[in-house]
């Protein structure tokens, strides 16, 4: 009965997802839950290395994994304390900080990308060694240390946007100036003050570097005063306002050109460049599914550096992205509880190519054990995995992975390597409003 109900629910969900997928194109940057540290700690993720995605308020999901040779569903959820406290508004109003953070500011980046995750699965003997089989609980946290950068065209548009906002304000301040003697130098200094202290902080997205901002202010100071004096109109309010209106109109034309070029890109807001994510987690096991028999199995922390190139063709609506990723992970096993004798140091690399809804990837992870039993003659193992993902909708991804896994823990390093092939659907529930 339970199986029938589950099957019916699954069919309904698939139909709903299919219909939804027909009308709404999936957002490329939506969270893939299987990258959460909780799943990594439980050892149930088919991929070991994932490029970080945009944090969201709350996301929950399911994936399939092989547990002691059987296909088992696993559940995890992840939430972002920052976005729970500052929910993303469901609005058509563009907020750059929802897509990209401001210039590299370590504390701000860490605060906004900090996520906490928790997952459960049945325990696997290869992952949890001699602990009695039961229910595993993975707890994790992750945040970014470096958050990539906007595309060069997004920077060009945003630079033009900021400059145009300044010229608009400058012209308006001159227009409404009510002082006795018209003093353009005074108005210009007030406009610069407004730019630095009001416009840039309010926009929360300044792509101009300190040097670029300084150069802009110096250039405007010199050229505007020079041109007004050369034309002999610096004391004439109406003529100066007309001159500044023309500057604002010219800046608007530049912004319009840059915006048009940006909108022609297939994925104008995608983050590119270098990102580094820090993750940490712990895995606990309820042995024999007994509430009183909780054991800490392992703790780990790791860094995931990644670099993304947008290789989409110009004026194409098709997205093509190339990602190069790596991981360095230290795992401390609870040897007293019999999880494993030694601790692990993993290093790995992954290359992924995404074309619209499809992603193909190849991943290699090398594992070195600090200690091995006397009868084991090597202290390393590796896994080599290829994968294909097809994103059906924001909430549903079909995954297929094929490769060879780690040779279990150090007690089984001498076992012949076994291949695995696993396919399934990743379900996600995104953007739940908890407030």
């Amino acid at each position, binding site marked *: 009965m339970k199986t029938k109900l589950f099957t019916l629910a699954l069919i309904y969900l698939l139909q709903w997802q299919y219909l939804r997928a027909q009308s709404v194109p999936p957002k490329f940057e939506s969270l893939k839950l299987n990258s959460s540290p909780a799943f990594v700690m439980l050892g149930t993720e088919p991929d070991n290395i994932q490029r970080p995605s945009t944090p969201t308020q709350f996301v929950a999901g399911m994936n399939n994994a092989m547990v002691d040779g059987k296909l088992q569903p696993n559940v995890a959820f992840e939430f972002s304390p920052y976005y729970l406290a500052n929910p993303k508004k469901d609005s058509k109003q563009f907020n750059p900080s929802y897509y990209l953070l401001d210039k590299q500011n370590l504390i701000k980046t860490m605060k906004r990308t900090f996520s906490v995750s928790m997952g459960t699965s049945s325990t696997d003997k290869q992952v949890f060694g001699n602990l009695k089989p039961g229910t595993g609980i993975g707890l994790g946290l992750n945040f970014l240390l470096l958050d990539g950068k906007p595309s060069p065209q997004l920077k060009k548009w945003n630079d033009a946007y900021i400059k145009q906002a300044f010229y608009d304000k400058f012209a308006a301040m001159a227009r409404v100036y009510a002082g006795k003697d018209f003093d353009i130098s005074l108005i210009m200094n007030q406009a610069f003050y407004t730019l630095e202290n009001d416009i840039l902080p309010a926009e929360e997205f300044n792509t101009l570097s300190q040097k670029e901002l300084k150069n802009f202010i110096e250039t405007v100071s010199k050229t505007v005063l020079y041109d007004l004096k050369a034309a002999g109109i610096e004391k004439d309010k109406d003529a100066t306002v007309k001159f500044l209106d023309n500057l604002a109109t010219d800046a608007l034309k530049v912004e*319009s050109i840059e915006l048009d070029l940006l909108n022609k890109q297939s994925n104008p807001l995608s983050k590119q460049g270098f990102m580094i994510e820090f993750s940490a987690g712990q895995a606990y096991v309820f042995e024999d599914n007994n509430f009183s028999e909780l054991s800490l199995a392992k703790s780990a922390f790791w860094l995931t550096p990644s670099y993304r190139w947008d290789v989409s063709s110009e004026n194409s609506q098709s997205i093509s992205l190339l990602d190069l990723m790596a991981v360095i992970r230290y795992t401390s096993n609870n040897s007293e509880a019999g999880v494993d004798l030694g601790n692990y140091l993993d290093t790995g690399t992954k290359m992924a190519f995404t074309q619209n809804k499809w992603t193909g990837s190849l991943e290699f992870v090398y594992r070195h054990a600090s200690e091995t039993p006397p009868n084991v003659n090597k202290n390393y193992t590796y896994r080599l995995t290829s994968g294909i993902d097809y994103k059906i909708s924001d909430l549903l991804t079909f995954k297929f992975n094929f490769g060879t896994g780690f040779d279990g823990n150090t007690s089984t390093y001498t076992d012949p390597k076994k291949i695995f092939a696993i396919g399934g659907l990743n379900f996600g529930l995104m953007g739940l409003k908890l407030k």
Partner: protein
Amino acid sequence: MATVSPIHLNSQAVQFVYEISAEHRESLLSLSIEIILTQEGWAYRANSQVFLNAKDLLPAGKPLPNKLELGSGESLSDQSLLIRTKVSRIKTQSGTSNEVPMVKYIIRIGTGTEELSSFEKESSKENPSVFNATLLFKQL
């Protein structure tokens, strides 16, 4: 809904006389601006300026005023309200058409509890679109 709109698109505004009825002499008038964009996969980025005579009423960088207090009907008489909003449209989702969607721009004047008038204008496909309005208040 007023029949004549003081909103000008991509050109300087022509002064529009806004009459405040005698019954709102003591009422505190406020200004709100709304933008409606219905196209999926696109968002708008707005930048507004609001000046009452020489006084800058809206902090720089604030996209749109919402119930921005202007003053009592009587105090506003013979004062000029300058409104300028630049609306840029950005494609936020892959797979959507590159055709720039139109937006509807609405200015609302009210008392906080009651809407007295609203004016609207549809954008062109020009991106960004700039909406200008200059209202000269007259207390009846």
